[in-house]
């Protein structure tokens, strides 16, 4: 049995109350959404804190309407929202491939956006980490993946919802001690496996919001993982496009789970706006994405294979956007 460390549990009823508890927790705290990530990390003894602040009892975080999804809405609730899935069908496939049905029952949207970075050196029991040698992200002197790195962690981002919200132009509403602020989700992440994003520790994700014109985008999320259910992505690609006939009017691309954050590939996308979405264009975009992705050995599969699969997944995403029938093969057959 995995034993949770001791902590005090606060159960505030409002965002303001939660922020107040956080500010008072001078010895350190963590917010608890669904708990499917945080409690696992706590059981591993990873970066635990003496205060845990549950956000599950805050009604403001549970709202969902017109492309706005509260940070505390469970993934299962999104999955069951027929209107939302009608407006943004790409989430049907994304959610279907996100964790297991049981995890989705409890896991929240904000929890998935903020899912801690993962690494084969990090996500181990304390016993294993002691034997292997601790890493930079958990009490060690240097990164074990990129040896010699003492100021940057290379653990892998493993959320699935963020890249889709990013390519749809999603914004994030944060509430903190200094009030509320809104930022584009694509500007939220910071390239370091420890820092991860620009959120202040006390800030809470109130909602993620999609612009109304996102409904007219065609989008696709292609995820590669070892085990069909439950597994975190070994790599993934999110893409969206607004088409004018067969011409690409707008294009957005994200390479996911090949770095410590979902990578916003704006330069590649800009290069192909105005082009015809032909097989040749798809192959060229896929090759550019493959070259741009630089995964390291932080996950199960070899980096070279994951890099190659970024191209494959990009091509699949773009073909799906074009209207081709894309069949997802079983893992292991995909290459």
């Amino acid at each position: 049995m995995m034993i949770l460390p001791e902590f005090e549990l606060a159960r505030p009823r409002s965002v303001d109350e939660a922020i107040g508890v956080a500010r008072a927790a001078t010895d350190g705290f963590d917010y608890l959404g669904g708990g499917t990530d945080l409690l696992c990390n706590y059981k591993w003894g990873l970066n635990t804190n003496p205060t845990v602040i549950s956000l599950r009892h805050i009604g403001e975080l549970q709202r969902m309407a017109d492309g706005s999804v509260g940070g505390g809405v469970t993934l299962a609730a999104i999955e069951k929202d027929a209107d939302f899935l009608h407006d943004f069908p790409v989430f049907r496939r994304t959610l279907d491939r996100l964790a297991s049905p049981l995890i989705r029952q409890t896991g929240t949207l904000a929890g998935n956006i903020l899912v801690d970075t993962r690494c084969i050196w990090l996500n181990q029991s304390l016993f294993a980490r002691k034997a292997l040698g601790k890493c930079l992200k958990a009490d060690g002197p240097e990164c074990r993946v990129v040896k010699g790195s003492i100021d940057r962690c290379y653990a892998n981002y493993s959320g699935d919802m963020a890249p889709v919200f990013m390519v749809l132009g999603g914004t994030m509403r944060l509430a903190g001690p200094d009030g509320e602020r809104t930022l584009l989700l694509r500007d939220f992440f910071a390239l370091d496996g420890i820092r991860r994003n620009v959120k202040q520790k006390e800030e809470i994700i109130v909602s993620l919001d999609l612009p109304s014109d996102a409904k007219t985008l065609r989008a696709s999320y292609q995820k590669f993982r070892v085990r069909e259910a439950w597994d975190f992505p070994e790599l993934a690609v999110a893409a969206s496009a607004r088409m004018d006939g067969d011409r690409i009017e707008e294009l957005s691309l994200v390479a996911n789970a090949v770095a410590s954050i979902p990578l916003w590939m704006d330069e590649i996308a800009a290069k192909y706006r105005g082009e015809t979405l032909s097989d040749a264009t798809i192959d060229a975009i896929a090759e550019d994405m493959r070259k741009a992705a630089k995964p390291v050995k932080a996950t199960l599969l070899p980096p070279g294979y994951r890099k190659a699969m970024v191209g494959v997944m990009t091509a699949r995403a773009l073909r799906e956007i074009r209207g081709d029938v894309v069949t997802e093969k079983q893992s292991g057959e995909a290459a």
Partner: protein
Amino acid sequence: MSKTLVTLNVNDATYEVAIKPQDTLALALRDGCGLTGTKIGCDMGTCGCCTVLVDGEPALGCLTLALEVEGRRIQTIEGLAGAERLHPLQRAFAECGGSQCGFCTPGFVMTSVALLRTNKAPSRDEIKAAIAGNLCRCTGYAKIVDAVEHAAEQIRDEDDSVPTPNEMSEKPETQAGDKDDAGIHGRRQPATAGR
């Protein structure tokens, strides 16, 4: 950390349990309520052995803090059968060989209960999708899918709705466990979860 005396509503009975803030629901059910039908497998949300229903929805007992479900309606495998008869899913698992070592079975059954409440005639693919978060190391899954399919047929034949624990509440006078430490019906003496 100090313990808190909380009231858990499990299988329509009330349990007063002393728990620490970090105690999981699975731990509170097993050590606090004496309901050991809920199993703890991986304890990390991967295997689904600890699945119970909270307000009718499946939940992982190992990743749910017990304090978080105070006042909510919890259903475990013990609350499924009546005094005289098993729930159709339990019967089907026995009849179809869906259970071998049995450790994962409570989780599979509870997940399947939730499925059959919302989908009375699931296809095999829908059953496989619904139980994707439950792991079995013995059966190879085929007989589990057979069992859920068979139970769905039985339920449709017997009754147009899946019996809820309430509907099958031919409960024994006392809850599972030592009768001596049970108080009035469905109410146990304060017990201690955890270590």
